[in-house]
C-alpha cells in the first residue's frame, strides 16, 4: 500500500519503516509489526532510508539508535529540520539516559530498549502512526486553503482580510473606497472560492494557513 504525500489531497495511508543494521532484527521487527495490518518497509541504514523514501509521507519509523554511518538521532534531527511528519519510535540495544533525553526532546514517540515488550512496541507504533496521520491531515488542510487563497484576485484578497477582521461591508467599502455593491460581489466570490460556509469558517481557514 502506497501513501500519498502529506498535504496532498490524495488519500493518505501510513507506512511503518524499520531501520536497523541487523538483518535478523529488521526482519523480526517487520514480522511483528505486520500484525498491525500496516505496510512495513525495511531499511538497513539511515542513508538507505533517506535514499529510497520521501520524508513527507505519513508513517512511523522504528529506528535503531546506533548504526554504522548515520545514527538514529542524526536521522531524527535531519527529519525534524525537513519538517517531516513521520513519528519515531526509538529502539536501542544499549541506550543511555542522555540519548533517551535527546530523542524525546527531538519529538520521539518513545525510547525503548531491546528486547522490548511486544505490546508496548505495537502500542507506541500505533500511536506514532496516528500522530503522523493527523499531522499529515493538518498539512493537507493548509495546502487546500493556500490553493484557494491563491485563486483570489488581489481585490478579493483585500476584501477577505477585512471580512476576517469582522468588519461590516459598509466599513470595507469605505476603507477600500469602493461601492457597497462591489464589496458584496467580491465577498460572495471569496466565500465561494474558499468554500466557506460562514465568516467563522473562513477565519479558521486563514489561521490554519498562516
Amino acid at each position, binding site marked *: 500500500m502506497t501513501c500519498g504525500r502529506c498535504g496532498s489531497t490524495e488519500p493518505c495511508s501510513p507506512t511503518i519503516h524499520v531501520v536497523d543494521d541487523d538483518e535478523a532484527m529488521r526482519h*523480526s521487527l517487520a514480522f511483528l509489526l505486520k500484525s498491525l495490518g500496516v505496510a512495513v518497509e525495511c531499511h538497513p541504514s539511515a542513508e538507505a532510508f533517506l535514499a529510497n523514501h520521501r520524508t513527507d509521507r505519513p508513517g512511523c519509523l522504528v529506528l535503531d539508535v546506533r548504526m554504522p554511518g548515520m545514527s538514529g538521532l542524526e536521522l531524527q534531527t535531519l527529519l525534524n529540520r525537513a519538517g517531516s511528519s513521520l513519528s519515531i519510535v526509538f529502539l536501542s540495544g*544499549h541506550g543511555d539516559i542522555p540519548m533517551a533525553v535527546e530523542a524525546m526532546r527531538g519529538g520521539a514517540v518513545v525510547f525503548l530498549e531491546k528486547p522490548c515488550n511486544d505490546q508496548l512496541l505495537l502500542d507506541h507504533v500505533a500511536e506514532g502512526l496516528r500522530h503522523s496521520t493527523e499531522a499529515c491531515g493538518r498539512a493537507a488542510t493548509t495546502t487546500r486553503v493556500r490553493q484557494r487563497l491563491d485563486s483570489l484576485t488581489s481585490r478579493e484578497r483585500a476584501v477577505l482580510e477585512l471580512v476576517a477582521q469582522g468588519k461590516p461591508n459598509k466599513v470595507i467599502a469605505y476603507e477600500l473606497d469602493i461601492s457597497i455593491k462591489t464589496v458584496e460581489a467580491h465577498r460572495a466570490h471569496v466565500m465561494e472560492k474558499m468554500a466557506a460556509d460562514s465568516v467563522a469558517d473562513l477565519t479558521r481557514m486563514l489561521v490554519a494557513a498562516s
Partner: protein
Amino acid sequence: MPRGAILIRLGLLALALLCAPLAAGAQPPDLRIGVLAFRGAERAAAEWEPTLRQLTARLPDYRVRAVPLDLAGMAEAVRAGTVDFVITNPGQYVELEAEQGIVRIASLASSGDALRARTVASTVVVRAARQDLRRLADLRDTRLAAVAPEAFGGFRIAWREMAEQGVDPFTQTAGLDFLGFPMEAIVAKVASGEADAGIIRACLLEQMAAESRIRLEDFRILDARMAPGSPCMVSTRAYPDWPFAKLAHTPERLAKRVVLALLSMPGEDDHAWTVPADYQPVHELFRALKIGPYAHLRHRSATEILHDNWPWLAIAVLGALWWVLHVARVEYLVRRRTEELKRAHEEARRQREEMEHGARLALLGEMASSLAHEINQPLAAIANYASGCERRLAAGTDSEGVAEAVHRITGQAERAAAIVKRMRAFVRKRVPEPQPLDLNEPVREALGLFQATAARQGVVVSIRLAGTCPLVRADRVQMEQVVLNLLKNAADAMADQPRRETTIATRPRDDGFVEVTVSDSGPGLSEDARNHLFEPFFTTKPDGLGLGLSLSRSIIEAHGGRLWADESEGGACFRFTIPVASENLP
C-alpha cells in the same frame, strides 16, 4: 781331613761291607741310611764315615749302606720308603717329621770334654769399613750373599732374624745372591765388596782366620753375640744340630739297636751322637717364616686378616659406610630438589596459566557490554518472532509466515549459542596445547569476538588474510588472545579519532615464519610508550592493567616467535611472527 785319609777310610768301609756277608755266610739284609749330601756324595761319605763304621761294627747282621741324597732326593726316598734311617739338617727333619712321620732317635753332639748337643747358628758378616751396617735391620737395600734359599744354617736362620727386624731379604734388599757351597765364596764376595753382607754358618770366619786366609779385623759381625757353648761370635740364636731319624716303617727293635750303637759311638772328629734334642726352636723358625710345614700360614684365613688389619678394615668399612650414606644422601637430596624444582616449575606454569586466564577474562570483561549487545540482538529477534507468531496464531492468519518465523527463531538461537560458545572457549580454564594450526583460524575467531566492539566503537576492520597459510605449531586460544588483545588496543587507541580504521593481515614470510599484523589509524605511539610498551603494568589506558602486551609477548616468545611495534605512517602497527611447524617447511 786329608784326601788320602778319606780314601783309606772309604776303602776300609768297603772292605767291612764286603766282609760282613761273608762272615754271616748268607746275604744279610740292607740297612740303608739316607744322608743329606749338600756338598756332594764324596764329602758326605767322608763326614759320616765314623758313624757308618760304628753301625757296621755293632750291627754285623746288616749290610749298612749310606745313600747320599740331595734335599729333593731325600724327600722322595722317605716318601717311597727306600731308606730305613736318615741323617739330615734340622730344617728338613722338621719338614719330614710333619709330612712323613719320621722320628729322631739321636742328635749330633760335640765330642769335647763333655758330650753336648751341637747347635747351628749363622753369622752375618760385613766389611769392617761399612760403618753404616751394624744391625740386621741395616740390611735393607743392601746386596746380600747366602748359600741357597733352602739352606738352614746358610740362609734360613738369618732370614728369621732379619724378618724379626723388619727386613724381608727377598723383597727389601738390593739383591740376594745364592752362591751355594763352599761358604768361603761368600766371605770372598763380602771382602771384595761385590756383596754388602754375607750369611755364613757360625765359626766359619774364625776358622778361616785361624787358617790365615782372612783377617778377623777386616770384618764385622752384625748383631754379634756369643753362641752358647761355642767360642764363636754369631748373629742369630742357636738351633739344635742335625738329627738321626728313623722312618715310620723302621722296626722299633732295629731302631733301638741303632740308637745303642750311636750313643755308644766314641767322639771322633767332633762327631758324636747324643739323646735327641728338642727341635721346637726349628718349628718356631718355620712357623715364623711360614715355610715348610707352616707354608699354609702364608695363606692366611679371613679371620687372621681381619685380626691383623682390623683398624684398616674398620676404616675401610666406615669409609664405605660413609660413602654409601653420602651417595644415598646425595641421591635423596637430588631427588628432593628435583621434586621441588618440578613443583616450583609446575607452580610457575600454573600461575602463568592463571594470569593468562585472568587476562582473557579481563579482555572479555572490557568488551562485555558489546558482547552482551551482540547476544541481545538474536534474543530480541527471537522475542519479536515469537510475539508475531503468537498474534498470528491468535488471529488464525498467515500460517506460512509463522512457519518461516519459527525457522528464523532456530537460526537466531544458533547465532546466540555460537557467540556464547566462542566466549566460553576463550575464557575456559585450560592447559595450553600447541598443535598444528592455520593462524587464520584464531584470527577469525578473535575477529568474531571483536566484531561487536568494533561495531559499537565505530571501528571499520579491514581483513587481509593470506589465502593459504603454512601451519604453525601453536596453541589456538593463546593465539586468539594475542590477536584480540592487539585489536582491542587498536580500538581503544582510536576512541577519540574521527576516522577509526584497523587492518589485520596474515602473511607467510620467506624466512619460515608466519607474520600477523594489526595496524590502526590512531594517534600512534609516543616515544615513552614505545620504550615501555612491553613492560608489565605499563599502560596508557585509564582502566587498563598493563598486562596485555607483556603477556602477549611472553606467549609469542614461548612459541619461538617475536612480537614488536613497527614503524608505520600514522597510527600504530604491531606485528608478531610464529615459526612454521618443521614438518610443514617446504
